[in-house]
C-alpha cells in the first residue's frame, strides 16, 4: 500500500527493523465508549532511525502524544491498538507485560511535559535517580548507582550535583527539574528517549537550554529521540525529521528544514502560515477556519478537506494515504505534486 514510503517499514524483515529505533506501521488506536468508537489514531505509519531525532508535530487531538503512549503501550485501559509497533527491535504489541516493564525501565524512556509531576515530591532527588538506575539494572550496587546518578546530573548541567542529590524537587527551578527528569531517564542507559512536549512548561531561555541539551545527548550518546510538540519553532533546528499529524493521521513527513520551507501538504502550509513569526508585525494573521474532525467523526475523504484552501471534489470522497512525493518525503494529499494516480476509492475505516 505505502510501498517504498519507508524502505525499512515496507520490508517487514527483522533485518530491516534493526536499523530503526521505532517503527510504527498502520497503527490504529481506538477507544470504545458508551457513545461509540473513538478513533484516536488512524493508520499512522512512520519510523525513527537509530540515532535520529524525529518530531511529531500537530495540534491538540492530532494524535502525537497518543502515538508516543502507544509505542510504549501506556494507553488507558480499554484502548485498542492495531498494527505493528517495533520499538528497539522488539514487537511491543506482542510483548508480555513483564518484558514490557523492562523495556520501559531500561531501553525506552519517557520525559513528560511537566517536570514537577514527574518527580516524587517527598523523595530526595538522589534516591529517585538511584531507583531509576537500579530498576533498569538490578545488578547495580547502591553505591555504583549513586555514582552514576551524580555523573548524569553533572552531564545534564546541574551545578554541584553531589549536594543536589540530597535536595527535594520543590527546591529546584523548573529548568533544573526538567534536567533532573532527563538525567533520571539517562541513568537507565536507554536507546530511545520519548519526550512529550518537553519544554512547553518552561521559559523561553530555559527551553532553548533544554533543547540544546537534547541535541548534545543525541550526538554524544547516539540516543534516538522522539519529541511530540505543537510548536514548530521549538523543533525547527533540533529534529532531523518532522512527522506532521492531523486528526490522528500522519499527513506529511520529511527532513525538517525541507518540510518547513517547502511543505507538501496544505495543512502543514496553513499551519506554518498562521504563526505570528511568519507575518509582518501588526499584519492580520492567516487563520485556518473551522476545526479538525473529532475522534468520533469519520469523514469519508481527507480529514483536512473541510478546512483546506485547495480542496477538490475528489478530496471529499477519497481518503488519501501517505505516499512518497519526493526523495525522503511523503504526504497524504491527493493533489500534491507527485502523489500519483488514485487507484482506490475511500479506504476502509
Amino acid at each position, binding site marked *: 500500500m505505502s510501498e517504498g514510503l519507508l524502505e525499512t517499514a515496507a520490508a517487514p524483515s527483522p533485518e530491516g527493523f534493526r536499523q530503526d529505533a521505532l517503527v510504527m506501521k498502520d497503527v490504529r488506536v481506538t477507544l470504545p465508549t458508551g457513545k461509540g468508537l473513538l478513533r484516536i489514531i488512524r493508520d499512522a505509519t512512520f519510523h525513527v532511525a537509530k540515532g535520529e531525532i524525529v518530531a511529531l508535530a500537530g495540534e491538540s487531538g492530532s494524535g502525537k502524544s497518543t502515538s508516543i503512549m502507544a509505542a510504549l503501550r501506556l494507553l488507558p485501559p480499554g484502548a485498542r491498538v492495531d498494527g505493528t509497533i517495533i520499538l528497539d527491535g522488539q514487537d511491543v504489541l506482542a510483548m508480555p507485560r513483564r518484558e514490557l516493564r523492562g523495556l520501559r525501565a531500561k531501553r525506552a524512556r519517557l520525559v513528560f511535559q511537566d517536570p514537577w509531576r514527574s518527580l516524587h515530591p517527598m523523595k530526595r532527588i538522589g534516591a529517585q535517580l538511584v531507583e531509576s538506575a537500579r530498576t533498569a539494572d538490578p545488578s547495580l550496587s547502591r553505591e555504583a548507582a549513586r555514582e552514576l546518578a551524580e555523573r548524569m546530573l553533572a552531564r545534564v548541567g546541574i551545578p554541584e550535583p553531589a549536594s543536589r542529590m540530597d535536595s527535594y524537587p520543590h527546591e529546584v527551578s523548573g529548568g533544573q527539574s526538567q534536567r533532573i527528569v532527563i538525567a533520571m531517564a539517562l541513568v537507565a542507559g536507554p536507546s530511545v528517549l520519548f519526550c512529550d512536549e518537553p519544554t512547553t512548561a518552561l521559559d523561553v531561555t530555559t527551553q532553548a537550554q533544554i533543547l540544546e541539551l537534547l541535541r548534545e545527548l543525541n550526538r554524544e550518546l547516539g540516543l534516538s529521540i522522539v519529541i511530540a510538540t505543537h510548536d514548530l519553532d521549538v523543533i525547527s533546528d533540533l529534529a532531523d525529521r518532522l512527522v506532521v499529524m492531523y486528526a490522528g493521521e500522519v499527513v506529511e513527513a520529511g527532513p525538517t528544514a525541507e518540510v518547513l520551507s517547502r511543505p507538501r501538504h496544505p495543512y502543514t502550509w496553513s499551519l*506554518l502560515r498562521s504563526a505570528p513569526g511568519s507575518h509582518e508585525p501588526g499584519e492580520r494573521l492567516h487563520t485556518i477556519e473551522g476545526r479538525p474532525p473529532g475522534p468520533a467523526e469519520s469523514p469519508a475523504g481527507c480529514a483536512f478537506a473541510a478546512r483546506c484552501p485547495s480542496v477538490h471534489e475528489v478530496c471529499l470522497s477519497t481518503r488519501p494515504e501517505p505516499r512518497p512525493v519526493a526523495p525522503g518525503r511523503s504526504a497524504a494529499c491527493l493533489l*500534491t505534486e507527485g502523489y500519483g494516480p488514485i487507484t482506490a476509492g475511500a479506504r476502509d475505516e
Partner: protein
Amino acid sequence: MSEQHVARADGLVKEFRLGGGRTLRAVDGVSFEVRRGETLGLVGESGSGKTTVARMLIRLEKPTAGRIDFEGRDITALRGSALRTAVRRRMAMVFQNPSTSLNPYQRVGDVLAEPLRVHKAGDAAERRRRVLEMMEQVGLDPAFAGRYPQELSGGQRQRVGIARALMLDPSLIVADEPTASLDVSVQAQVVNLLQDLQRRRGLAYLFITHDLALVRHLSHRIAVMYLGRLVEIGPAAELFADPAHPYTAVLASMQRDTEHRILPTGDIPSPVDRPAGCGFSSRCPLATARCVEQAPPLVPVSDGRRVACHFPGELRLGGEPGHRAVPAPPPLALPVTGLPTLKKGG
C-alpha cells in the same frame, strides 16, 4: 500629558510575607505607562513579577508602595464604590486559561450578563440585548448564549473570556497569556480578534506573554522584566532589532538563527535572596564587579526608550532580525486518475 496615557504605574513595589519573618519582593520599583489605544507587551521569565505588576495595575493586588494612575486619577487606595466605578468598569482582565476562568455552572449568556448585573446596567431585556450584541462582535454564534462553557471549544471559550472583559466598555484590557492554552491556528483567530477590537474601540492592552514572536507581532511597545524589575522598555521593533539590555538581547536572539542565539547560563535567581546589584549579573556575559555591587537605574537611552544597564547596547546581536520566511504553497497537481468525478470536472 494625562490624555496621552490611560494608565501609569509609578515605583510599584510588592512584597509578600513568607514564613520565618522573611519577605519576598516580587516587584521592585516598576514604573511605566500604557498609552491610549496601544498594546504594551510585558515579557519576562516566570517569577519575574510580570503577572503581579498586571494584577496591581488592575487593583487585584494592593501595592506595598508606589502609585497607580488610571484615566487621570490616582487609584492606588480607592475602595468600595469608588473603586467599582473608576476602575472595575473601565479595566478588565482576560485570563490565560478560559477553562478555569469561566464558571462551569453558568451559561455563556449569564457569564456575559453578570458584569452588567453587578454594575446595575440596564434592565434584563437591555442586558440581554447587549450580551447578544457583544457575542456578535467577538464572533460567537448567539445560539451559544444558552450553552455551558464546557460545551465550547478552547477558542470559543476564550472568545467568551474576551467578551466578558468588554461588557462594561473598558479602556484598558490586561491580558495574561490569553492564547497560551490555544493551538496555533486557533491562536491566530483570537489574535486577529484582539487586534480588530482594539482598532474598533480604541482599546489599550497590557499583554503579558512569554511567546516572543507573538509579542513582537502584537505590541507597539514592549516592557521587559527580570527578577522583579523593569530592565528595558521601548518601541517593539527597536527592542528586537537593537536591544540595549543584555537580557533583552538574549530574548531577541531567540528569534534569530541558531548560531546567533545567546544562551545565558544557569537559572533566574530566587527573588528571596536577590543579588545586591543588577538582577541579571549572575547570568550576564558582560557582568563586571560594578554590576554585582550596584543596581543600575532605569534611565532613558534614546527617545521613548529606557534601560537599566551599566553597559547598554554592548551585547550585540549577530544575524538578521525579522520574521521567518513564509513558505511557498505546496505544489499541487490535479490528480491523474480515471475517477469519473474528475473527468466530469475537466
